């Protein structure tokens, strides 16, 4: 049945650090690479070398500009994949029971052999986390790399989602949000982890860490008092040479003064 579990033992999910993400799209590629040849149907491409190429992706990186009044504009790269919502609207709308949220760890999955490809779950998801594969006619979504995180054939270091494992900036973190002592829970608490579109009541598990406040052009660096002055008065022969040269016309200072 597509009832949601009343609670889950674990709440596995991701923390995505918008301060650290450099927008390299490595997570997009590693996600597609892993998931096209593992869990379920491959992630197909349409016209990959033609006009308007199109394909199924479980993770996509947007880029936004944030501009406050009187401040310089800031670019924020924004990776987006399934948020494994506690109150997942995509699960309850499924007519066949193909979509489900796991009681043991909270991962939202699609049983592709039951999926009729009606697309209603994609309509119900506010975030655009589900994509109907155009070749297979079944719904594809992030599995949180369920076939990696419990996979004892992989070295322990690789037992995390492909996107997290590959991120060169360390902007993605994987863990259990039900455990308040976990790495992801602490990060969320320390950095003010945010929900996306909280007004829709989906209760996403994945959290986004906001960019840290940047300094402005007018601020003096906190390190300034510790720095030696760069420009020093010349001594000895250089001091004599400086004085003699200053007497000659054509100096920058003199030209500025003449203007």
């Amino acid at each position, binding site marked *: 049945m597509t009832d949601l579990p009343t609670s889950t033992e674990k709440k596995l999910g991701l923390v995505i650090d918008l301060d650290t993400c450099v927008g390299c799209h490595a997570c997009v590629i590693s996600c597609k690479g892993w998931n096209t040849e593992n869990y379920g149907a491959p992630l197909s491409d349409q016209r990959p070398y033609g006009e308007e190429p199109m394909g199924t992706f479980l993770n996509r990186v947007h880029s936004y500009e*944030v501009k406050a009044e009187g401040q310089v504009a800031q670019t924020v790269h924004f990776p987006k994949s399934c948020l494994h919502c506690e109150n997942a*609207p995509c699960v309850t709308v499924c007519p066949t029971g193909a979509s489900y949220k796991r009681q043991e760890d909270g991962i939202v999955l699609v049983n592709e052999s039951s999926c009729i490809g009606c*697309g*209603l779950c994609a309509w*119900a998801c506010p975030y655009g986390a589900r*994509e109907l594969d155009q070749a297979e006619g079944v719904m594809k979504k992030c599995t949180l790399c369920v076939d990696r995180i419990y996979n004892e054939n992989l070295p322990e270091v690789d037992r995390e989602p492909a996107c997290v494992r590959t991120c060169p900036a360390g902007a993605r973190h994987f863990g259990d949000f039900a455990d308040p002592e976990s790495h992801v829970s602490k990060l969320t608490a320390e950095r003010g982890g945010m929900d996306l579109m909280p007004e829709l009541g989906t209760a996403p598990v994945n959290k986004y860490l906001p960019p840290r406040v940047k300094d402005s052009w007018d601020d003096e660096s906190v390190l300034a008092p510790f720095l030696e002055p760069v420009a020093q008065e010349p001594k000895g022969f250089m001091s004599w040479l400086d004085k003699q040269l200053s007497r000659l016309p054509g100096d920058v200072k003199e030209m500025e003064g003449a203007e």
Partner: protein
Amino acid sequence: MHPAASVIVFTTLSGAGLGMLAWLGFDSTPSTGWGAFGYYFIAFALAVGGLISSTFHLGHPERAMKAFTQWRTSWLSREGVCAVLALSIMGLYAAGLIFLGEAYAILGWIGAILSLGTVYTTSMIYGQLATIPRWNTPFTSLLYLTFAIAGGALLTGKVTIALVLLVAAAFVQVIWWKKGDTAFADRGSNLGTATGLGDRGAVRSLAHPHTSPNYLMREFIHIVGRKHAQKLRVISLVLMAGVPVVLLALFPVSHFIALLAVLSHLAGVATSRWLFFAEAEHTVGIYYGMR
């Protein structure tokens, strides 16, 4: 939302067919024999034809039987269950009228209620979606039910009732449009809440994830058709209610006039349904800086 032809055809024809079945089921003086056959043939052709067309957009129609299992949570599943029950029971009732000349009124009543129930479940598939604020209102169910009942009255030849209901349907339609036009803004979702960055300043989309459109953009962002939305609204109202009302009120009722009125009505409903999808804005569009 992308206005898929299969879904427009389905909701238009099935709505009219199920509305017709409701009137036939509630009829206290039903016709029997060949007269009944004519009505039921048209009603079943519309309802079943529409339901079959709705399977055309499925990725795996061969697994459609599984869609009857999740009625506890899924309005789409409830629609399937309701439709099969309504058509089966109305089929039995119709068989009684046509072959035995007997009206088993209780079957007619149950079948009629289930027929309207099917229209309601269809409307709830759309009305339940918080992601599409324009649809996410009880008025969506009112719209679908009024259209079905008005169309059913027209198709079963209840001229006086049809005149009243067509005008009522036009009113509901106008109210639904008016409410819908502000629904997205009223919900308060924007790029600020979608990214969580809204309290830091104005957020705008700099670059999409990929250079060409993807499934999400094709399915959820449909801007082209909205250009003529206002004109199409007027056309829809004129065809759905205006022309049929004028024809029925001014001309003596004949099969030819009735056929013209029905065709005009169905074309008007189809236009309304096209707008229903084309004008609907999904929250996914926000992430692309589009609607």
